[in-house]
């Protein structure tokens, strides 16, 4: 068979083109944020949720060599929580983050910081981890809409440290305080379709904190008639609509 360099160049151009096209096909999927019904649609995650013990963003990026030890340590521990960041933000390319907390949250086994060879993840205690901050969507949470549900607090590895309950007529009303480390176990074990808890980065929390607190205080001070209208008028239909999402998740 006659195979000249020209043929090869042609072939490689075709192969390169195919690769570019295939990655191009992925591009829309990359840039279109998941449109799945999630909690708190108004609040963005605000970056990447890093594995536990990560240094501040800038230092973390400068130290991480994308060796994949944390990803594979997580795999060996059978949690599979850590993924490698793609091209959405070029600075973050190749660095690890917790991708799908709904299915694969961090279990705070603290093995990845123990094994990180670069020092980008530092060995610290569970309680001092600052991966992010879990926010409850008061409009979706069962506990805020006339139910008693303790799923999130039972799943939480820090438990009583993190959860404040404001028991009342409208349910057990859980509130996650700032001791939250952002592991996402509550996101995983929320019985609502698409979860009623969202974990955002610490920097994002600093931005949205005020609004979130105002929302919380307004709900706490709300008179019963008005609360009735909110729960039965807006929230419950929304919650029931998510039942189908839960079915899909279970499938």
């Amino acid at each position, binding site marked *: *068979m006659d*195979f000249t*360099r020209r043929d*090869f*160049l042609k072939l*490689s151009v075709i*192969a*390169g083109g195919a*690769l570019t096209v*295939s*990655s191009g096909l*992925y*591009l829309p*999927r*990359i840039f279109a944020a998941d449109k799945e019904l999630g909690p708190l649609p108004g609040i963005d995650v605000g970056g990447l949720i890093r594995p536990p013990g990560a240094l501040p963003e*800038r*230092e973390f*990026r*400068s*130290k*991480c*060599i*994308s*060796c*994949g*030890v944390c*990803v*594979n*340590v997580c*795999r*060996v521990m*059978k949690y*599979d*929580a*850590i*993924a*490698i*960041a*793609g*091209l959405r933000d070029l*600075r973050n*390319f*190749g*660095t690890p983050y917790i*991708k*799908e907390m709904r*299915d*694969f949250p961090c279990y705070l086994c603290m093995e990845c910081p123990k*094994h*990180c*060879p*670069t*020092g980008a993840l*530092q060995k610290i205690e569970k309680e001092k981890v600052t991966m992010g901050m879990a926010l409850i969507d008061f409009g979706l949470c069962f506990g805020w809409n006339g139910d008693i549900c303790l799923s999130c607090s039972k799943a939480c590895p820090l438990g009583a440290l993190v959860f404040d309950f404001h028991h009342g007529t409208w349910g057990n009303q859980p509130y996650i305080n700032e001791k939250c480390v952002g592991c996402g176990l509550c996101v995983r074990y929320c019985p609502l379709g698409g979860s009623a808890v969202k974990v955002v980065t610490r920097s994002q929390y600093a931005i949205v904190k005020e609004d979130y607190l105002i929302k919380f205080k307004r709900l706490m001070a709300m008179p019963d008639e008005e609360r009735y209208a909110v729960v039965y008028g807006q929230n419950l239909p929304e919650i029931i609509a998510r039942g189908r999402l839960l079915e899909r998740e279970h499938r």
Partner: protein
Amino acid sequence: MTKIGRYFKVKLSKLRRFVLLGIIILFLLQFFGVKALVGGLTGSVAVWFVKLIDVFAYFESLIASKDFTMTAFWAVLPAIALYLIFGRAFCGWVCPMDFLYEIVNRIKDKRQGSGVGSQKKTIADKISPKIGYVVAMLLIVISALISIPFFTNYISHLTNFFRTLTGGVFLALDLPVEPVVVVYSLSVITALLVLEYIYPRLWCRALCPVGKTYGLFNKVSLLKLKFVEGECGECNLCEQMCYMNVKIARNIDRPGLRDTNCIYCGRCVEGCETKGKLIKLSLKRVKEL
């Protein structure tokens, strides 16, 4: 044949592939929960205890972060110790690209109908291997400027090879992974293979900063090329077999050779007319080197 080869009657080229296969299998076992070797060749954890980090990656990370940590230092020490013993043998024995390149070269030989080792010299052979140090310095400077280990994160064949592996396995098992990472990493590896097809071993000999760093260890490593005094037929087969352009034949009257480009693949040992009596890979001390 080396001593090991003599005991087990294995050819060096076969032994080399066994070593590579063994290491890749150890890395693959991590996906099934075996804690033998976890991570990739840029950084890994051996037997769940010893952290290892690639020397060039260490420097890049160090310079990019402008911060010294004991964690990384303790991880690079065992790596340095390994290379003080084996020199640049990493390239020939452990690096998966060496194997992939060999396959590419076999395909090329078949297509062009010429024998192994008799490939035409391309313009790439005129490029001085010293350019690699400039490339490495440049990459380090870029890393310092953008505060990200540039080569290791984006270009490195080792990172990308293991990202492809891990990503592929995660895709197959439906675990969290961004497919674009796999596509990117696979593209980089493909691009390197295309480069290999056009300019054989240009990457290894002149460009790869990882190999260049290990090459420096060749100057002091225990492992070296040892030449035994004897009848050299001056057939020049050793130099023809060597794809790293090490000048073996013209140094054959010396006791040994420490060349920063030698990857201790042993092809010269096998290629030699005397079948390994003249050239040897030796860990023993050689006088006047």
